[in-house]
């Protein structure tokens, strides 16, 4: 038997790692993977809460989050390809067209 809070702490750690990666990574693909890590952390808390309150709709929400993540990955990676085609770099520091 595992207390539900352990799952929530694990999901918090995963989300925190995702936030830190989003902030410190400089490669645009790594930043994107950090976002996926955050989504995974949220999914774990959804499933944990579904188990806590015996509500299966939490697992349906995980399914919907996965669909959104798939759509986001498809569009985001297409944007990365477009950026690379125009700027010849994956470093976000060099993609500064909108910077003042």
């Amino acid at each position, binding site marked *: 038997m595992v*207390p539900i809070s352990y799952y929530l702490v694990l999901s918090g750690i995963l989300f925190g790692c995702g936030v830190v990666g989003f902030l410190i990574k400089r490669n645009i693909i790594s930043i994107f993977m950090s976002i996926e890590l955050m989504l995974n952390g949220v999914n774990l808390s959804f499933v944990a809460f579904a188990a806590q309150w015996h509500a299966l709709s939490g697992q349906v929400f995980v399914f919907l989050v996965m669909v959104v993540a798939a759509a986001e990955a498809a569009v985001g990676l*297409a944007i990365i390809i*477009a950026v*690379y085609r125009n700027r010849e770099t994956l470093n976000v520091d060099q993609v500064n067209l909108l910077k003042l």
Partner: protein
Amino acid sequence: MLHLALFSIFGAICVAGAVNLLVQRHPINSALSLIAVMTSLAVEYLLLGAEFVAAVQVIIYAGAIMVLFVFVIMLLNAGEEERTRGSRVAILFGIPGVLLGGVLVAWTLIQRSGTDEVALGALPGSPTIIGWLLFHDFLLPFEVTSLLILIAIMGAVVLAGKPEAETQQTGKGH
């Protein structure tokens, strides 16, 4: 006991993979550690009784989405990232702040919601029940996500397709 052992082992793999994702400088290493995180998360879902979600996690996340990532890394020939110097303020206040916040959140969670425990397979998350829910209670969201996927496919084709000027110059594009 077995439940707790499985949770600890795969939770440790999860955290190790997440930290490895941050430490590695080559994107392909980060992608592989993200796959490790996702597959061990599938085991955590199984421990919570969510069979269908665990299967979808492996098939969609660790399979389809990560293949897309690895494919793009290969396509763009992404090398090691250049490390920029972190700011002093971030090191001085950021790391203690993150640690403090994390400990605070973890302590609150364990204090407030530590009473409920999950038995192995306490909640039946079989494909039958999830499918029934999806096609009855959540029919409208389900249809909206299919529309979202359609728009995402068209957006990806438009964004990643060849630019028009280049296509006209070569004269061979569709």
